[in-house]
């Protein structure tokens, strides 16, 4: 079974301070990490790999040269191979372009039985890559998955569905997007960290390697600016417990701090 895990490198949120009142983002420490969603996808893939004899896990990532570090970390966690998709023509990529590039890479790898991605990234959090990739490759899809097992050419998943969960079986090949809270990632193995830099290679694939025309990589979405939510003003809630509780839950939901309705929430 071949598993491909497209991972994303993001700026470490611990090094960022957002000042809503000043309407500015301060980057105190420019460090890059593997996105928590991608890490969960790696974890899910590595668990499946451990359960069987014949399985390979391949990490791919689209990004500039620094993304190499993320891929080597994926190798240290236990992946068998890693490929960096990097080209000056890829720099402006939006989600539709990224899908083209990742799909081309999966095809070049000879397809996959299972593609695992995070439900949503920690920075932009659009949550589109999984289903888009499934469509581009013609694979089946299950999103927001909390438990995963593979048997006889099908994946049995437990996914979030509305307020609850549902068990869904999907035929392979498929794209599965995983919920980060359900797959806490392992730490990279010490010896593998050394090997990741000393012994193993992370090949770089560009436009020419993937048979992509730079002219076909025009983004569809344009960025129209940044704004900030209003700062949290101190608020008092008084009254009978039932109404107060309802008000607090509503306020927390509106500030995106809790997610009672199900669906999506960033990690």
């Amino acid at each position, binding site marked *: 079974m071949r598993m491909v895990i497209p991972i994303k490198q993001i700026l470490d949120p611990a090094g960022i301070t957002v000042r809503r009142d000043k309407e500015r983002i301060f980057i105190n420490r420019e460090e890059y990490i593997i996105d928590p969603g991608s890490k969960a996808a790696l974890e899910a893939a590595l668990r499946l790999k451990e359960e069987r004899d014949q399985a390979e896990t391949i990490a791919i990532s689209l990004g500039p040269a620094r993304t190499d570090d993320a891929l080597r970390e994926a190798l240290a966690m236990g992946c068998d191979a890693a490929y960096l998709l990097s080209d000056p023509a890829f720099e402006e990529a939006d989600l539709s372009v990224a899908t083209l590039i990742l799909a081309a890479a999966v095809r070049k790898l000879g397809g996959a039985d299972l593609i695992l991605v995070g439900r949503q990234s920690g920075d932009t959090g659009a*949550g*589109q890559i999984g289903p888009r990739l499934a469509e581009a490759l013609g694979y*089946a899809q299950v*999103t927001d998955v909390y438990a995963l097992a593979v048997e006889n050419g099908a994946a049995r998943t437990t996914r979030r569905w509305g307020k609850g969960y549902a068990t869904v079986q999907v035929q392979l090949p498929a794209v599965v997007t995983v919920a980060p809270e359900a797959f806490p990632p392992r730490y990279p193995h010490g010896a593998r960290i050394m090997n990741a830099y000393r012994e193993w290679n992370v090949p770089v694939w560009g436009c020419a390697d993937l048979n992509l025309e730079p002219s076909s990589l025009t983004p569809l979405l344009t960025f129209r600016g940044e704004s900030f939510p209003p700062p949290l003003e101190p608020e008092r809630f008084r009254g009978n417990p039932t109404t107060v509780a309802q008000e607090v*839950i509503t306020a927390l939901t509106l500030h995106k701090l809790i997610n009672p*309705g199900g669906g999506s929430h*960033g990690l």
Partner: protein
Amino acid sequence: MDFSFFGELLEEEREITPEVTEGYRNLWVAAEAADGTLPPSTLEAIGQAREIANQIGVYVWASLLGDGVEPLAQQLIAYGADRVLVADSPSLAEYQPEVYVKILADLVGQHRPEMLLMPATSLGNDLAPRLAQRLNTGLISHCLKLTLDMSERLLLGTCPALGGEVYHTFACPQARPQMATLEPGYFRIPSADPYRSGEVKRVDLDLGGVTGRLSWLEREASVELPPVPLSRAKIVVSAGRGMGDAEGFALVQRLAEVLGAALVGSRGAFDEGWIPEDRIVGVGGQFIAPDLYIACGLSGDIYHYFGVQSARCIVAINPDENAPIMKVAHMAVVGDARQVIPAMLNALGR
């Protein structure tokens, strides 16, 4: 004078290729039906669509897919749709991404809507990106706000980034339809007008051999989530002596469970034997920085506050309005936590 910038301006004008956007009209909502009703998220999308449609002078169309959903079409009209395309068939009882994408893509190809809105529900989040990829168009997902750029008839979608700390606004100038998913709870539910008139049209299903690859085995599955390490917890719930006894503490435990939160406490809670020593928050204990910190029945002196001051939002539930934690909390709930927490659990639907 140098007028070369004129050339640049004209260049920019030309960038919008008219043939891409021409012939696309009207505003669509891909409505959802759940358990024989229209969920609030769909009504919100209809309401938002109506507002935008009124501004640019077009009709609101809704598509409704499912089994036995036709009676709901009239409701969509009452809430603001002008025309409802219904695909009602037993074969659509279960959600199948490929089948839904095929039906919607065919309808979009036939009727060419200018904009297509969907609620950002489990189904919408699964379906919308796949549909956007099929239609080769852009999708602005998880929008909290939609506005219009009237000069180019562009839909501007504002969505959260960096975990909701920043909002980004996007537009899709080069492809049609302009797609967006709407985060539930952020848009107004319109009032229904049962006398509104509109047209309901049944769609002839032609799946062209597309079949679903999912089997829905169980609707009411449960999941056991692994414990969240305290340092990485996004939500932390904490108990203080004010919870009274073990029964009161059990309420806090239940709240943490329902919210998927880590459970901590004050030194007082440790003294009572409710929490282990490594779950004491404050000076001499843990320092945490969650997105949300809910302090239940603890007064929160300065030593405790040091441990949680980096939290993005502090909620304090305390009957004493002048307790120290109530002065620093973003949301200070004046009341007995032993009554407020059950009501909160109730409001959360548990």
